[in-house]
């Protein structure tokens, strides 16, 4: 708590804002050290700025009340040229205030840029696509999409890239954003002390579907994370050769229509294709934003463009599927899970 001296004086300002916004989305209710550092800096700058506003407002109100033209007043005010001492005061005080803000800012800027990888660090390569997110864990040899699983209390380092246009990777409750820039690899780090589902967004205009380019960060305890990683890396054979009758039919539909772009359990997919679906049954949302239910899934598969504008470029609609084919496909997709149900 070396930052205590900075946190205390102005925590009251942010206190009344803490309840604002949806939990695990707002930057005003930080859930990790990076977002906390940024929140503190916002608080410090806000405190200084409120001071400036109060000083200006006090002079402003006094001047307007005291020196307004009264009826019948025709006097000619003294034509004052200026005042050197006043000029020095209102040059010097702002400089001092800015230094107070600049020093912690420079320190924090360097702290946030320190993306050193140690033995315990989990590295995730993030690739942004129009309009979805791909997450690759190089050390664990896992690739997934949309839902980013991380262990709690562990340092996570992201390498950020983009496959088409510039996007921006933002998890307000955990960390500020970094752009994903084609041809350049950016990096950043986060930590999530608490378990939870944190909302992530694309923050850089990237085309029609920009506003729906959401993702989730799912922080689970390290044991669960290991289980998840294990399940992703060596998936149950049930995922690829389901034993249930309906799911087996669904798998067949999947192989005929989906497998060329979407991998499951390390099979299928291609570099220009869509998200890996190995744990699709556990996805928080469909396409990153729709409630995960059968109707939405069917609507999405039949016409993605109608649900998320611009996504039709990457994924054609499969309105050709018969109802029973669709039902078995949905059944199969929902069976794609790597964690034990609890």
């Amino acid at each position, binding site marked *: 708590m070396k930052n205590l001296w900075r946190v205390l004086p102005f925590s009251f300002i942010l206190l009344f804002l803490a309840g604002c916004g949806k939990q695990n989305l707002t930057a005003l209710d930080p859930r990790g050290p990076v977002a906390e550092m*940024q929140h503190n800096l916002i608080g410090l700058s806000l405190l200084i700025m409120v001071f400036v506003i109060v000083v200006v407002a006090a002079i402003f109100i006094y001047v307007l009340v005291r020196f*307004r033209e009264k009826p019948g007043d025709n006097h000619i005010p003294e034509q004052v040229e200026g005042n050197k001492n006043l000029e020095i005061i209102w040059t010097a005080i702002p400089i001092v205030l800015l230094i107070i803000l600049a020093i912690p800012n420079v320190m*924090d800027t360097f702290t946030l*840029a320190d993306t050193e990888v140690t033995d315990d660090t989990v590295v995730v390569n993030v690739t942004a696509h129009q309009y979805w997110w791909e997450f690759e864990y190089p050390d664990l040899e896992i690739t997934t999409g949309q839902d980013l699983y991380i262990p709690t209390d562990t340092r996570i380092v992201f390498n950020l890239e983009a496959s088409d246009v510039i996007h921006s990777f933002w998890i307000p409750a955990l960390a500020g954003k970094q752009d994903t820039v084609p041809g350049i690899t950016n990096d950043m780090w986060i930590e999530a002390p608490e378990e939870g589902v944190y909302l992530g967004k*694309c923050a850089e205009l990237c085309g029609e579907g920009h506003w729906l380019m959401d993702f989730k960060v799912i922080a689970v305890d390290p044991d669960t994370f290991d289980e998840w990683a294990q399940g992703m890396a060596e998936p149950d054979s049930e995922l690829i050769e389901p034993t249930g009758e309906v799911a087996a039919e669904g798998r067949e539909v999947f192989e005929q229509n989906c497998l060329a772009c979407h991998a499951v359990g390390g099979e299928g997919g291609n570099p220009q294709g869509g998200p890996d679906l190995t744990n699709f049954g556990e996805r928080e949302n469909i396409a990153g934003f729709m409630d995960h239910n059968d109707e939405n899934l069917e609507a999405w598969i039949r016409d993605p463009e109608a649900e998320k504008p*611009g996504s039709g470029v990457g994924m054609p609609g499969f309105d050709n599927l018969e109802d029973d084919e669709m039902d078995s496909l949905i059944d199969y997709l929902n069976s794609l899970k790597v964690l034990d149900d609890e």
Partner: protein
Amino acid sequence: MSNAQAQKSVLWDWLTTVDHKKIGIMYLVAGGFFFALGGLEAILMRIQLMFPNFDFVTAQTFNELLTMHGTTMIFLAAMPLLFGFMNYIVPLQIGARDVAFPFLNSLGFWLFLFGGVLLNLSWFLGGAPDAGWTAYVPLSSEYSGTGIDYYVLGLQISGLGTLIAGINFLVTIINMRAPGMSMMRMPLFTWSSFVASALILFAFPALTVGLLLLMLERLFGATYFAVDVGGNVVIWQHLFWIFGHPEVYILILPAFGIFSEVLSTFSKKRLFGYSAMVFATLIIGFLGFMVWAHHMFTVGIGPVANAIFAVATMAIAVPTGIKIFNWLFTMWGGRIQFTTANLFAIAFIPSFVMGGVTGIMLATSAANYQFHDTYFVVAHFHYVIIGGVVFGLFSGAFYWWPRMFGYKLNETLGKWFFWLFLFGFHLTFFVQHFIGLMGMPRRVASYLPGQGIDELNFVSTMGAFLMSVAFILLVVNVIVSVKNKSEADPWDGRTLEWAIPTPTPEYNFAQTPLVRELDALWYEKTHGNGKIKAAEPLDDIHMPNGSILPIFMSLGLFLASFGLIYQVHPVTIIGLAITLGAMFIRSIKEDHGYHIHKEDIKKEEGVG
């Protein structure tokens, strides 16, 4: 006036005019039209964002609206409106009969207008540009339709006009000042126009280079930004913001100038700390070029660059603070009159301070990772641009209207307009600070329900409606006040533009004025007989002839643009031939201008 002059039709007169006053009015009319258009685009966006998941416009249309709103407001509304005042007022304030290059002045206007029309025609010809006013590559280079071609060419043409205008103002202010009007006696509006023009001179070439590269990439297959073959997409952002940040100061400095004039006039006091104000303006102009990368903190330019640009950005707060306090102390001890012009100038101070402090918060690079590309930024720059530039334009409009149009705007309607606009403005944008921090990125076509931002977005839209109602009141005011004739010096003015008859004679000053002090007219009112002394005997005045050639030069480039966009190169060649032909005619045809004779001047001035 010679017979040849008198016989021309009104329309022909305006199309060919090189008179800085008429060009200034044309800038105001065209800029006012684009301002209304940009406002309409804003309202459509705010309606779309009134409810979550609302289906008023499609995401594609929304992206086009947000792009055109920004582009229109910056390039086609705010700058031309300021140019309108600069054109009309600066020569009067320095005691000049016209700008240094009247022909170029006309060319600058027509280039701007044809560029603006070209850009807006994209709405009807395959869709408007949709990559944001910043047009980041590769979204704008490889993933957008013909709208971006209109953006690239429209802005190149209108940017050429802006550059020409900037150079013209620089030369005018350096060379055309009346005797005694030393640099340190120039009114602050002239000073800030001077600095803004210098910024145009250095900033616009960066934009021109960027647009040229983007044009070559889109139309001729160049690969500056194509990552697959070794291009780099960040170069565009640097070029854009090396222009884009000074552009903010190009807009705000003349507005600062307007506030300095208005606050001083209506406090009946000389501007407090005149020389500090001048130097603060110069320092802001200089620092404005040192901070562009603060728009790029999240791009990944590294902690060293981020830290340096953060500190440099914070430094701008110092000269800006100096200005704020000098304005406050200009009013201190004065006799403050609450005219509509002054209400806008007074309301500017707290509004702009709000925008200024959020600017410092944004400059805090580590915290900027949270702010960047959210509605917090949207709130910040609207506080600066509406609270600063637009308030300045409204203040200047009410202040100089009698000088420019010979009648006063109605004060009662004006005050209604002011209060509605002020309230609507803060209602719209104050809540957006919170919307941004609560997780709403900017440039989103809609948002999902249940994120805690539904009510705030609704409130914001209500504010936008109030602002539109206020704007309609302004338009009504302009129309109903026409009969409200004004005397030559309705505000008990301090500077030279109030020393001449109304309506302003074509030649401005019958005799070039002799300036004896800062606030030349005020000085003569308090130390002399209230009349400006003349620096020369009354004599024939030499005036430049009008010319239709600027329209043809601009029209040629306009046509050539269509040839380029649709790759129909005969049209390109015809267009360029028209432009070059008009330039050729201009070069070889001698034009000596004409004289306004002494007798006519005497008649008009009511002397002898």
